[in-house]
């Protein structure tokens, strides 16, 4: 009985959640004429690849893909490492002003990127990172949500674990690598997925940093297609955005496979 309730719940939710997604993918296969026709069509009446052809023809997709992948992959590696270490340090370390510092991290959650955009631009420029892909990576290494996720996760690791290892004479470094890091696999999986998604979909930093077409990312290219004077080629935009989702989806499935499997199979030994 409970199983069926669960299944029905999942199916209903899935239908609700997929409606906009389906609609956008379906619309990416419509011609512009059909997108603007009334009543709206649920299935493309005259399926066309026009949007995809336009998206690929006008844009140097491969360059943008390469830039975006570079940024997303490198930033994700650095973000995951610094967040796991930082979360551990802030949750389990002892230092003056621990509570204040933790509260500060919570505060950073509330900062809108656009608000700090101008001073951030000045800093990036001082560091000579304009027109440099590292300018899309370094300013984004600290992610408020990623950091907070890591801190909260680390809090759940029992102190006794760490203390008993310490009694056994393990160094702090060894405790981190031998105990904390392996315990953090679900965290690493989640953070990797999050960080990849954030960098992949980031628009603010590319807007500030990049003044060269050869350094465009996918999101910047997507924003550019939206063009002028309301003349918006929606089928091209939707085709483009459908294409940009695929890598994130792959990463999602990949990282789940990598990190989440080992855990529940073996179970945590407390």
């Amino acid at each position, binding site marked *: 009985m409970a199983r069926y309730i669960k299944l029905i719940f999942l199916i209903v939710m899935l239908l609700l959640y997929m409606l906009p997604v389906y609609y956008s993918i379906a619309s990416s296969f419509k011609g*512009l*004429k059909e997108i*603007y*026709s*009334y009543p709206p069509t649920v299935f493309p009446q005259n399926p066309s690849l026009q949007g995809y052809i336009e998206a690929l023809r*006008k844009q140097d997709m491969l360059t943008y893909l*390469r*830039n975006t*992948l*570079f940024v997303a*992959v*490198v930033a994700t590696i650095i973000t995951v490492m610094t967040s796991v270490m930082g979360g551990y340090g802030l949750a389990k370390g002892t230092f003056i002003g621990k509570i204040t510092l933790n509260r500060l991290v919570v505060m950073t959650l509330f900062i809108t990127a656009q608000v700090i*955009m*101008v001073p951030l*631009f*000045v800093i990036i*420029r001082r560091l000579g990172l*304009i027109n440099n*892909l590292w300018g899309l990576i370094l300013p984004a290494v600290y992610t408020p949500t990623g950091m907070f996720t890591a801190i909260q996760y680390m809090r759940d690791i029992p102190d006794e674990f760490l203390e008993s290892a310490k009694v056994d004479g393990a160094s702090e470094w060894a405790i981190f690598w031998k105990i904390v890091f392996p315990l953090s696999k679900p965290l690493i999986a989640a953070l990797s997925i999050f960080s990849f998604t954030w960098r992949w979909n980031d628009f603010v930093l590319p*807007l*500030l940093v990049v*003044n*060269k*077409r*050869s*350094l465009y990312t996918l999101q*910047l290219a997507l*924003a*550019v*297609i*939206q*063009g*002028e*004077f*309301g*003349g*918006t*080629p929606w089928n091209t935009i939707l085709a483009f955005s459908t294409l940009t989702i695929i890598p994130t989806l792959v990463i999602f499935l*990949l990282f789940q496979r990598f990190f989440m499997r080992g855990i529940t199979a073996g179970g945590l030994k407390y």
Partner: protein
Amino acid sequence: MKYFKWISLFLIAALAVSAVAAKIKLVVWCGGGTEREGLEAAIVEYKKQNPDVEFELVDVPYAQYEQKVRLGIMSGDLPDLVTITYPYAPGYMQYMIDLRPYIQKHLGITPDQYLKAMYDVTAVRIVDTKGEIRYVPLHFTMQCLWVNADYFKKAKIPFPPFGGRSEPWTWEEFVDVLKKVKEANNLPYAMSMQRTAERLFCYLGIRGVKILDENLEFMLDKDPRAKQVLEEFISLFKENLMVPAEWIAAQDPNMAFTGGLTAVLWAGSWSTLDLLKAEKNFVPAYLPKDAEWLSCEGGRFFGAFKTGKQDREEAAAKFALWIGWKGLGYDIYLKKTYHMSAYKEHEVDYDKEVMKQVQAVCGRLAEVTPNWVVTVRNSTVYSRLQTPIVSQMSAVIAGQMNLDEAIKNIRKEYEKLVAELGGKK
């Protein structure tokens, strides 16, 4: 970790990006989409004649264009050339080089002759207070109506000037036409209009009401007719002649019009390319004529930043004048983008018949539009007042506020602006 290999491959590939430039390379910031295509097409031709110049086109997202330009000016990282939409153009004039000496040099005419060749309304936009010419027009737009000719045929209503009627409608006639065409075709609405201060300005202007007068004095609470005329505008939504969703929720007006829910679109020459794509029988028509007959012009301008580098400024100005002067790169650009020319009596041979009609309709509207329409809208006060006007009117149409309150709020905003700018600029 077998995935490590391709990760590092990407690292290396991305680091290998390099660019070496020996000749003069002009960096151009422009809008994406058709604007870029138009520029690219023209540049191909230009490079045949000037093989020593290279170009790098950087398209900037339309919604963040001004942010990008301001950050560029603030930091000094500027491109050589930039395209700018008309409402922002006056704000950045002082950062552009004066093109007068180059006009003489490259076009062989005096600056005065140059200005006389274009519509007066455009000339007003590119000259600064000292008479220096800071921009060339890139394309020119004019508000006009688009009608769904099939609906009008069915309702047996003629429309001006290509639908069996030569004179523009009066406002009264126009409202009547909207009602009839709606009824005859059993439509939910009659007219679509994007929610912008510019459309409202145009409507009010036609009805003989000015938001700001020639001295940039705020008029909506002084002109006794203003309230009445605004009330009539709002009632168009109440009577379902106009689409409430467009002014309340900023719905794209092209959707209702191309989707066939409305018979008229109050837009302009810039809509041509979009409307062509809908493959329907859409025809440009005159705006109605009431107390006044006028329309609001707009478009993009092309300017060369003062970069302080003599050779680059020289090359940039040369290109700007080539692409901004009729008969040269200008025609290539216009043919590609289906935009109108800013020059009087300039025939561009477009490959679409409808562009001839657009030129005829909008050219006529440009001729009848008085200069104050441009000078007032060219002011900083007006350009900054646009956002409050739209939000306040939208609140009134949504029934969230009454008109008096909205006008009072806009007045407050106006006074704040005047204080902030240190005068009516």
